[in-house]
């Protein structure tokens, strides 16, 4: 699906690169952008050098607890960034910061190169950031169309425009190749785990999300359903949408990710293209913060954070 050789050229330094240095990752990022983002040319052309989302030195404290320290992360569009880390590593805190649920205490969030402040989930969704949490937030008693449009139903003279909704929902699902759903009018409660995930993702796409964050999308799924969801993630990527996937399942990460970001104890210990990692090195990074198996590049702790000790 991806082009590892193109990724190889990119430095594994996104996590360590000082923020205002667009020159370094810039040219290398062009390559995958041309292949994967072909279907979203407008945005790619305007901001070809900038990743869709860039975190620079982001920190978050809860009282005396430092949940995140000096996080640097680039999320390019049309690519899947896997965010991995052990329990308590700060994955949830990080995505909640991106989703606008919490505001960072330090650092900057850049959206297409421009600094943005995300004070609420509304700010994030206005930019096109959609988060699909583990519980999916679907109403089981409503059908697929009703769930996808919940809160944004088109109306004509106060009456719900069901025809428009159903057509748009069908088209979005078709674009995502969700083939197993027989009718978009069946209640979501009757769907399988993978299908439910698909509906939640389709809702994000329908709302023109440009960055979709998936929190453990395969956690509760069997083999078949997991495959459905991984295919879905690839479709998102093909549509030029940036994806952040949080996962504990390294198989999934190795299958679907273009880039890997490893969090440990609130610090970004390594970021880079998937080709630099194998399952063992990711586990090493997650548990100890370093790995001897990293291809080529020695893993280092995130800059400035070594002072912690």
């Amino acid at each position, binding site marked *: 699906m991806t082009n590892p050789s193109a990724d190889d050229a990119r430095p594994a330094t996104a996590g360590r690169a000082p923020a205002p240095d667009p020159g370094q990752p810039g040219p290398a990022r062009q390559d995958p952008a041309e292949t994967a983002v072909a279907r979203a040319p407008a945005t790619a052309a305007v901001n070809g050098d900038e990743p869709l989302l860039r975190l620079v030195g982001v920190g978050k404290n809860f009282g005396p607890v430092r949940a995140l320290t000096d996080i640097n992360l680039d999320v390019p569009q049309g690519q899947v960034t896997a965010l991995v880390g052990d329990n308590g590593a700060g994955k949830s805190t990080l995505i909640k910061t991106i989703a606008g649920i919490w505001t960072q205490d330090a650092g900057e969030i850049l959206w297409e190169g421009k600094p943005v402040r995300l004070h609420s989930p*509304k700010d994030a969704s206005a930019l096109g950031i959609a988060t699909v949490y583990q519980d999916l937030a679907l*109403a089981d008693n409503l*059908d697929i169309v009703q769930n996808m449009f919940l809160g944004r139903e088109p109306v004509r003279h106060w009456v719900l425009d069901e025809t428009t909704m159903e*057509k748009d929902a069908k088209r979005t699902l078709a674009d995502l190749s969700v083939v*197993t759903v027989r009718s978009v*009018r069946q209640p979501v409660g*009757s769907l399988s785990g993978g299908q439910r995930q698909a509906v939640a993702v389709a809702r994000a796409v329908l709302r023109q999300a440009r960055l979709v964050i998936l929190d453990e999308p395969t956690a509760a799924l069997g083999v078949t359903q997991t495959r459905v969801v*991984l295919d879905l993630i690839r479709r998102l990527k093909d549509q030029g949408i940036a994806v952040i996937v949080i996962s504990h399942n390294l198989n999934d990460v190795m299958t679907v990710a273009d880039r890997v970001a490893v969090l440990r104890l609130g610090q970004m210990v390594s970021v880079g293209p998937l080709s630099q990692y194998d399952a063992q090195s990711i586990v090493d990074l997650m548990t100890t913060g370093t790995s001897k198996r990293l291809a080529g590049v020695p893993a280092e702790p995130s800059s400035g954070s070594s002072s912690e000790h």
Partner: protein
Amino acid sequence: MSTDVEPPGADEVAAQTAATAAPEVIADSFGEYVKIWWTRVRSGESGALPVILGLVVIVVYFQARSSLFLSAGNLVNLIEQAAWIVTLGMAEVFVLLLGEIDLSIGYTSAIGAVFTCWLLVPPDPAPWPLAVLVGLAFPAVFGLIEGVIITWLRLPSFVVTLAGQLAALGLLLSIINTAAPGSGGTIRLYNNVLNDIENGAMSPLTGWIVTAAAVVLGGALMLTRDSRRRAGGLAAPPPSVTWLKVAAMAVAGVVVVLIGNTNRGVGFVVVQGVPWVILVVLVVLVGWSFLLGRTRFGRYVYAIGGNAEAARRAGINLSRIRILAFVLAGLTAGIVGIIYASQLGSVSSNVPGGQNVLYAVAAAVIGGTSLFGGRGKMLGAVLGGLIVAVIYNGLQLLGLGASPQYIWTAVVLLAAVTIDTVARRSQART
């Protein structure tokens, strides 16, 4: 890894779909429609069917015990008795769909009716529409206050509306004594227009015209909706099914008018015509069904009842919808108050408001509304209310007292809740 290959279990999924999606939206032919419908019935997604079957069984039983049961006179009597239960049941649906309950509307409806009667007391009565407006406004405002307390203080609706019930009873006693001092706690309804809601009837011709208009209007709406869906490239029910539904509607209308137009007078007095109250109930049913089924408000009510957290994350203002639901329950209770006053020709402080509201909850639940929220329809409350009324009417006709009436209502209610719960469980398992 291609998505072109259907994963194993796709057949299973399709079969499951057949059981859960309404046949209206997936069936291509009449035969398939019936097949899907039957699959749904077997899996517990049967809609109104068990309620209608139950109604038929009870009716057959009473007719077997007393040949008077299906006489025109008794059926019209039944309709007049059922009207307030049915409407109060519809009021309760708004809050039950949210997973809430309103125990106060039995008494607030009575207070509203007292205000209406009070304004119409001679010698200089207010215009009756104004009196009705006040009678509707009071329960609505009462619902508003309860809704605000429930959402802002996050208190359980059961307790808040139980307090509301007690407060409303207290208010009722004091307001009646102010409005009609020295009358022993009863205020008469002097207005003929309002009295005729329950006690007057359309002329036979008017009955036919109203029925024809209703059937034509309803049929036209269904057919245009189908054709619009087909024009948009979406699945629509087979025309045969839609026409069958229109025909069923017409038959039901004709039967009601035929019954209503039969002379039910005694001796030389001719009493005939469909009681006006049917029209009132029908308007409430159509209006509220439209509100729940075709507007954002209705969609959000179902969403909150199904998964409040999902609704909140979708940006829905939960408090506003919840408060509005309590207001609408109150408003509908106001209509019930008018019907109740019209039936009795007066409002009394002895009105069993606590018991009435429990009948209303029973009506809604028997009609398929889930106490857990998210499931139920206005039409269900009407059918459930009819069952409650039929039991009441039939046992009275048999000369049996209150005791079996309560017990049988209890049995039916328990059966309905059991069916609801079992259906939910079997769904959760699939």
